[in-house]
């Protein structure tokens, strides 16, 4: 190209170095993008800081005594705000829900990832399970009150009457209680568990599966002895993530657990969780009680952060090992 042609193109505007405006936009985009990316880290830090800081007044006054105290008495001369029943209730209800959700979630993940159904039906079923996560928890709470509780009550009372000496089945289901809450909670964490385990199962290298089938293993021998063990880290991560989700779930439990500050092993008795305690008591709380509820929020944050960081770490670890094998 001759110099004249280059000059012509420059004057016509076809080719030119970036103008001052272009460079300004470039710099602005770069710095804005970096700012907001850093902002996410700062947001997390700030959320942790604010919630931690708002628990300080209670810690200063009472130390960590409320963590291990059982009595919740708001009306006495010296009000007691023991959080132990709520902490145990959080762990217990989440564990029950997780038990149900793991059985269903892993079965669904296996059923959908291992070519049991035609591809089209698989997509439909997968979307239906994923839509379970889309229903707002307050709607699940309403559904639980008017559908689940009446549905399981006769069955529960039968168990309570005949097997009541067994501590898990002690007493009757009077309305709200641990079992309906755990069932609804299980439905809510099911999509998390099934989706993450589905990813883990379907990214097992097909050669492993073909190898096992070629050696004469049946489909389920292949699944249980080759595919599931290979994907086990991912599945375990899914369960831990589901646990994290169950711990923090609020509204369904606030509506279904009965808001009673006691801890019982029986799955028919009412109870409380940290999140439900906060949600149920906040609207009518006085200043002292709000402080305690903020402290309860800090405890919940600590528990869920630990569980979620472990879950995310496990899944990251599972993916790292897999990167070389796939593609």
């Amino acid at each position, binding site marked *: 190209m001759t110099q004249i042609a280059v000059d012509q193109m420059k004057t016509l505007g076809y080719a030119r170095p970036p103008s001052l405006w272009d460079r300004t936009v470039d710099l602005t*985009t770069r710095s804005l993008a970096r*700012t907001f990316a850093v902002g996410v880290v700062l947001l997390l830090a700030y959320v942790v800081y604010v919630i931690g800081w708002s628990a300080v007044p209670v810690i200063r006054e009472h130390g960590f005594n409320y963590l291990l105290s059982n009595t919740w008495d708001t009306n006495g001369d010296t009000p007691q705000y023991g959080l132990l029943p709520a902490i145990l209730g959080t762990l217990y209800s989440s564990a029950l829900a997780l038990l149900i959700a793991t059985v269903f979630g892993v079965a669904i993940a296996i059923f959908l990832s291992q070519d049991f159904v035609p591809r089209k039906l698989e997509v439909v079923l997968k979307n239906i399970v994923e839509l379970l996560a889309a229903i*707002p928890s307050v709607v699940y709470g309403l*559904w639980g009150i*008017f559908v689940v509780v009446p549905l399981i009550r006769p069955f529960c009372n039968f168990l309570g009457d005949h097997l009541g000496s067994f501590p898990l089945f002690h007493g009757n289901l009077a309305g709200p209680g641990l079992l309906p809450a755990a069932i609804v909670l299980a439905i809510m964490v099911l999509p998390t568990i099934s989706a993450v385990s589905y990813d883990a199962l379907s990214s097992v290298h097909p050669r492993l599966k073909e190898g096992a089938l070629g050696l004469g293993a049946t489909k*389920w021998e292949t699944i249980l002895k080759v595919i599931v063990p290979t994907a086990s880290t991912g599945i375990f991560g899914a369960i831990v993530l589901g646990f994290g989700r169950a711990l923090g779930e609020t509204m369904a439990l606030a509506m279904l657990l009965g808001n009673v500050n006691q801890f019982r092993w029986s799955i028919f008795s009412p109870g409380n969780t940290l999140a439900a305690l906060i949600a149920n008591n906040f609207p009518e709380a006085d200043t002292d009680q709000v402080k305690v509820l903020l402290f309860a929020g800090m405890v*919940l944050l600590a528990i869920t952060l630990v569980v979620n960081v472990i879950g*995310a770490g496990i899944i990251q670890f599972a993916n790292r090992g897999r990167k070389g094998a796939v593609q």
Partner: protein
Amino acid sequence: MSALSHGPVPVPPASKLFFRSYGSPRTLISMGLSILAGALTLIACVPLFSVLIMLLIRGGSRIIHSGLTMFTSLPPGAMAKMGEGGFSNALWGTLVMVGLAALLSVPFGILGAIFLAEYSPASRLSTAVRFAAKVLTGLPSILAGVFAYAAVVIPDGPFARGAGVLFRLLPHPAAALPGAPASMYFQLYENLGAVSKGGFSAIAGAIALSVLMIPIVILTAEQALRMVPSKMKQAAVGMGCTKAQVTWKVVVPTALPGILTGVMLAIARAAGETAPLIFTALASDYLFPVDGHPPFVHLMRQTASMAVFIFNGSARPQANLIELAWAASLVLVLLVLVFNIGGQLLSRSSRPRGR
């Protein structure tokens, strides 16, 4: 090895070699487990349909009996007759708060995702950002509410203090712009004054919701941006584009359907959230966030929302309120499902084109 050293192996007939007997325990177990897994999958689909059918029956019957008045009237008092009242203020409250939260979180999330996908995909900072976003997706929604309560609602929280400092620095609108009560500046000034006093408000609710939306937007937007073929970017760079031009004119438009999917999923999640709003927007039975009085949009009022309306209605003894709660649930679920399914359809339609 032992088979080889003991002479020829007796070869069973082909039918036994290649076909497994249906009577053998191994095949029976395999079939049984298949049926079990299928049954568990089908059972897991039951709750969704049960919820939808209940919503249609109980919420739909209310809509059929009392028409669409529930969309235009306020919640019924204790003396109201069956079929009276509605949730218009809650519907407006949800729309305003979710809209405001989207305004806060979408630019935040998209720019953050651009940094992760385009500017620095493998740096330590990006790993930290991704990790923070993942931890934030696991943050219980109620804690987002506790956060916004402690940061925005409490009068001596950081937001209120910052607003108070600004409020004192700014000149009064009457002195700055005489005779313009509905101006933007007036609105800003009034809202700052209100924020500096703290209190339950739509702004606090929107901030709580945006804490929940930001990680969803950033993670899905990053995925979408990464799907853009690098050849397109290389072509743009080859023609002399700056990095920002590549990003805004090639990468973002190509990834737009995927980004919108994330935005819609985040909106669907936020619209259904209850717990954060109990702490931040509370609920008002009589006030609208939007009305005909200047400054028209009242973000510093207590604001009702669909989700909180359902929660409060479910705990009351009045059958009228419970009916209304079901109807509100139907509307809320429809709203959430439209955004959710719409978002997923968008991402599906975009996938072949992105490849």
